[in-house]
């Protein structure tokens, strides 16, 4: 049966068909749907772990126990999981262990544009890279086999366009895999120096074997169509190149991106007069060609930044530019915004009004940095808000403690904010941390987490109390506010900044997009009372604009949250009472 599937859904299908038993991941765009889709197969145990490091260790544990196991994450998630990865390379596996890492060239939804191929090179593990949904499924199945054959974790590298494009996939049946026999083997799995030294030798031998495998594997495909031009490429870049050149040039499409097959590359290059290397982000294939003494054109044309496309390739190689029409006027940009009814909005308005320094974090609330709220000073990575607040306060002392806060979401706090909070209580700053508890992992599209009371399969799960947790981590002052009540929220923020103790404020209100959240009827502006003071525009609600010189609320967007009513001094907004 043929089905149109997202690359991520096809990846999950591969996990299912390969007989994988245990899946543990942390959500992150563009990788999230792999694990969500895998969870729909009843034969597969799947969970959201609190972070990627935990997820990878769970998967490794399952592999050591003899099951086929998987964990998935976005590119920056692999940084968090790098610690287990680099040593899992030494231990190898028992049941096949496959790791998905989804890169985000162009940063559609990420804080950096790192190229995960470097992690595969540095950790010395096999890395495959599919270029469409059909390959996602097939490569994943092969990855499990190769993991077991070569005793190595295997990374399958995705990118946004492969992960989030649908193409047709041929479905097969699941092949059940018995658990492999579990035998104690300290020399393989206890990585203390004496054993690890021996395992490093094994890793280097394995790398040699993998190079030999890459030379002849059908995962690397050569298409000889012309002796003039040859293109070496991989993943989505192959699809772009194929669209531009069709059958007029020769291709070496690398399905294995670590290790690279030296002889295969040399043989291919020898068959063409000129060679282009087309790869997004870093110059990994090109550097290999340089090392092999093959003259190629690559980054001098395409650079290191952002995504490629058929248009970029056509322009840079063929000098072709498209014929286009244009609207002929400036078109205002449309940046993403907090949704109408977003519980973060009122809180960020208070932070903005109080002119605080705000150490931000990763999630929907990063949008608090945008106009008109402009209430964020720094955003680095998961959990960094809490730890960098401590550092900021250590550097600038008591004055900073009175006007600086950290904001972090519930899921991000569980991911890596907890350890940072321990540092605040242990090494003592009078820091004020605000946990934005919207009872879900929002930005990635509503995944459960340890504070929501449900697990990935939708079953009731043990629910971590943020209040109890923060107290257990040594924070004596823990307060809960409803961010829809702006006056109270502002009062509590002021009090906690003033007090000379570390404190946590939990700003609690479920995401307005959650299905169980009941919306109130849309609010209306009384145009006779409206003085066009524009106070209601200061909260940056996408449902409010000025029409015919009066404030106007879009009834299709408004969910009646009432934040704008609190802003209006003239009682001009009403309608849901």
């Amino acid at each position, binding site marked *: 049966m043929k089905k149109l599937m997202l690359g991520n859904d096809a990846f999950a299908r591969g996990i299912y068909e390969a007989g994988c038993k245990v899946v543990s991941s942390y959500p992150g765009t563009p990788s999230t749907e792999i694990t969500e889709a895998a969870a729909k197969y009843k034969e597969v145990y799947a969970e959201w772990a609190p972070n990627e490091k935990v997820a990878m260790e769970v998967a490794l544990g399952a592999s050591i126990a003899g099951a086929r196991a998987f964990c998935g994450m976005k590119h920056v998630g692999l940084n968090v999981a790098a610690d287990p990865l680099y040593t899992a390379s030494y231990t190898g596996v028992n049941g096949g262990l496959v790791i998905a890492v989804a890169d985000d060239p162009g940063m559609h939804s990420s804080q950096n544009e790192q190229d995960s191929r470097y992690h595969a090179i540095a950790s010395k593990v096999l890395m495959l890279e599919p270029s469409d949904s059909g390959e996602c499924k097939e490569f994943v199945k092969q990855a499990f086999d190769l993991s077991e054959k070569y005793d190595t974790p295997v990374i399958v590298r995705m990118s946004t*366009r492969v992960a989030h*494009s*649908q193409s047709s996939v041929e479905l097969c049946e699941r092949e059940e895999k018995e658990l492999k026999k579990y035998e104690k083997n300290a020399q393989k799995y206890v990585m203390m120096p004496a054993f690890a030294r021996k395992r490093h030798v094994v890793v280097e031998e394995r790398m040699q074997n993998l190079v030999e495998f890459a030379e002849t594997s059908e995962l690397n495909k050569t298409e000889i169509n012309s002796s003039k031009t040859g293109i070496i490429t991989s993943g989505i870049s192959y699809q772009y190149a194929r669209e531009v050149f069709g059958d007029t040039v020769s291709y070496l499409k690398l399905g294995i991106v670590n290790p690279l097959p030296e002889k295969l590359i040399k043989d291919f290059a020898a068959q063409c007069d000129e060679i282009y290397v087309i790869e997004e982000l870093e110059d990994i294939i090109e550097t290999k060609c340089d090392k092999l003494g093959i003259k190629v054109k690559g980054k001098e044309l395409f650079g290191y930044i952002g995504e490629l496309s058929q248009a970029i390739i056509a322009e840079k190689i063929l000098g072709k530019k498209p014929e286009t029409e244009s609207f002929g006027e400036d078109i205002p*940009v*449309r*940046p993403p915004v907090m949704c109408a009814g977003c519980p973060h909005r009122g809180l960020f308005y208070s932070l903005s009004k109080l002119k605080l320094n705000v150490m931000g974090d990763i999630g929907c609330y990063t949008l608090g940095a945008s106009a008109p709220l402009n209430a964020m000073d720094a955003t680095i990575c998961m959990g960094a808000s809490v730890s960098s607040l401590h550092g900021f306060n250590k550097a600038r002392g008591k004055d900073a403690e009175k006007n600086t806060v950290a904001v972090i979401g519930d899921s991000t706090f569980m991911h890596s904010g907890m350890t940072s909070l321990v540092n605040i209580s242990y090494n003592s700053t009078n820091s004020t941390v605000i946990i934005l508890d919207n009872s879900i992992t929002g930005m990635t599209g509503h995944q459960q987490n340890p504070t929501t009371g449900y697990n990935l399969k939708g079953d009731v799960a043990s629910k971590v109390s943020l209040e109890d947790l923060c107290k257990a981590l040594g924070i004596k002052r823990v307060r809960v506010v409803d961010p829809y009540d702006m006056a109270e929220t502002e009062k509590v923020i002021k009090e906690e900044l003033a007090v000379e103790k570390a404190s946590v404020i939990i700003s609690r209100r479920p995401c307005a997009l959650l299905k169980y959240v009941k919306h109130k009827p849309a609010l209306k502006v009384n145009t006779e009372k409206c003085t066009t003071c524009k106070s209601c525009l200061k909260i940056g609600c996408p449902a409010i604009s000025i029409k015919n010189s009066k404030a106007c609320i879009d009834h299709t967007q408004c969910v009646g949250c009432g934040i704008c009513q609190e802003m209006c001094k003239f009682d001009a907004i009403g309608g849901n009472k």
Partner: protein
Amino acid sequence: MSVKSIMIVGVGGQGSLLASRILGNVLLSEGFDVKVSEVHGMSQRGGSVVTYVKYGEKVYSPVIEKGEADVIISFEQLEAARWIPYLKKGGHLIVSDQVIEPMPVITGAAKYPENIIDKINNIGIDIISVDALTLAEKAGNAKASNVVLMGVLSTKLKFDKEVWYKALEECVPEKFLDMNKKAFELGVNL
């Protein structure tokens, strides 16, 4: 046949993902090779979003670049103007006449252009403007503007209605199916 390219553009949250999935299903049932490229994550929060649908004998790149789209379906006026450079010469533009002001306009940092549809007409682009929101509300839910627009598109693509209905059945939860079929018909009978 050569590859055909359809872009679905709008504001995050307007339902462009569902529209592209319906269309993708229709094209697959018609026996085409199909690729649909979506946007997830941050842009989905009220940003400018674009979905690419390509079909033909064999599709390689899932993305559509400037000057390549045979049809652009826009859920909002300003987004129609924004993506015009992606339209092929002689391509069609189907636009819902809804206006959603972006934040820079709301805050007064930028101006929403006036008479967008007339201006696009004046460039000489084939444009169909639809009050999809009112039609969707007539069908029972403002959120069904996406399906109204699929109804309009179906009149350009000439596939059997049963194929569209089957795709709706596959992509829409059963309790909303009748409402969506109604929305689709309102688009067809424009």
